[in-house]
């Protein structure tokens, strides 16, 4: 047994450095390691298991690195018992954390290509680190487009960052909501309708999609119709993850486990399972 590596099944204590509200039902937690930092590297797309003591554990994607680099930010929607308990945390509180786990968005593989990022709802959280990575070495990529859809304008995440993504890094940011009243002057319609409205060369484009599965299915169809090949489309899958290391089988997805083989998959590799009711 290697004692220098932490046991992936044992949560490490992390302190809540900051907690803030992103939208009416979504918040972010900035977590710093208590005691000596084990590591804070992660690859965009990976997730951590956050443990609210006495309540339960939940997989949450890393939505950014902490500003001073010694921790992680997680964006969480308050939708159940564990996420509600995490929402009740205050600065200085302690939680358990295991991770990071899982596969990553293909940032290096996208060098030299145009990149289309499609996010639905809270799906922007796991894609934000990918966008940061692309912007960090902006000159290595062609056109970058972010197509982001949410149910209502008040559900949109990270809106205060959009202008900098557009202005400073030349990202084509297109935002749409499913319904709105007249106070909203942006787009209304599903996110897939945004694809023809941005510039990219379909033959040299990598697409990264995260959102509800039904949205991803239509997004893939639309991208394919626009000429993007299946090998260049990446999706992230969500299932009920428990152990996060492929032991328990809760997140089995055909022959794969979402926690260790995913959550990011190349579309052509999961295509046969993508629309199977039984999976």
């Amino acid at each position, binding site marked *: 047994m290697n004692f220098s590596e932490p046991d992936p099944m044992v949560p490490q204590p992390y302190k809540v450095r900051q907690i803030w509200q992103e939208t009416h039902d979504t918040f972010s937690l900035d977590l710093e390691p208590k005691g000596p930092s084990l590591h804070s590297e992660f690859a965009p797309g990976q997730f951590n298991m956050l443990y609210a003591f006495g309540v339960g554990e*939940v997989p949450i994607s890393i939505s950014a690195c902490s500003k001073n680099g010694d921790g992680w930010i997680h964006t969480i929607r308050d939708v159940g018992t564990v996420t509600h308990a995490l929402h009740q945390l205050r600065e200085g509180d302690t939680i358990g954390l295991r991770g990071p786990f899982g596969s990553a968005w293909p940032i290096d593989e996208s060098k030299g290509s145009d990149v289309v990022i499609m996010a*639905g*709802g809270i799906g922007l959280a796991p894609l934000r680190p990918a966008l940061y990575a692309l912007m960090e070495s902006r000159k290595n990529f062609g056109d970058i487009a972010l197509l982001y859809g949410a149910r209502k304008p008040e559900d949109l995440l990270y809106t205060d960052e959009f202008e900098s993504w557009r202005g400073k890094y030349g990202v084509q940011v297109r935002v749409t909501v499913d319904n709105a009243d007249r106070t909203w002057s942006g*787009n209304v319609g599903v996110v897939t309708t945004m694809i023809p409205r941005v510039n990219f060369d379909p033959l040299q484009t990598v697409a990264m999609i995260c959102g509800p599965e039904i949205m991803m299915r239509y997004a893939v169809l639309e991208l394919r119709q626009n000429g993007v090949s299946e090998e260049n489309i990446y999706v992230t899958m969500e299932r009920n993850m428990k152990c996060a290391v492929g032991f328990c089988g809760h997140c089995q997805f055909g022959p794969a486990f979402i926690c260790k083989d995913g959550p990011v998959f190349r579309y052509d590799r999961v295509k046969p399972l993508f629309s199977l009711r039984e999976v």
Partner: protein
Amino acid sequence: MKSLQSIIETHPFFKGLDEPYLELVTGCASNVRFNAGEFIYRQDEEADTFYIIRQGKVSLEICQPGHEPMVLQTVSEGEILGWAWIVPPYHWKFDAQAVELTRTIAFDGKCLRNKCQEDHGLGYELLSRLLPVVGKTMDASRLQLMNVYGIKSSEGV
């Protein structure tokens, strides 16, 4: 200055349309501009115009009595506005309002219908272009109805 026909032929909806058909549709067309907030048409009015959008954004709205209007869809540059001009009884189902300054090419619906009636080849061309737009709008409406971003209480952890 660009001719009306050259503007029409570069719009995605008419791209690749044969010259004789382009001339026919141009005969029904005019340049029309709407200021932000201006209504382009209202629900139940006669649908006598077909628009292609050159610039700007238009919201399609529905209004229930006693409620604020709800925006169902926005259409913008490179897209089209309205197909009720070709579907009897030729009445608009929604309100269309310019969200920002919007430049369009407006086609007289009756003029287009007559030309389609006289030349079924043109009719086929226009319907082949219109039907995918209708189909995609229908797909999108179904997705909107599904409320895919909502989470059922049983799904949350």
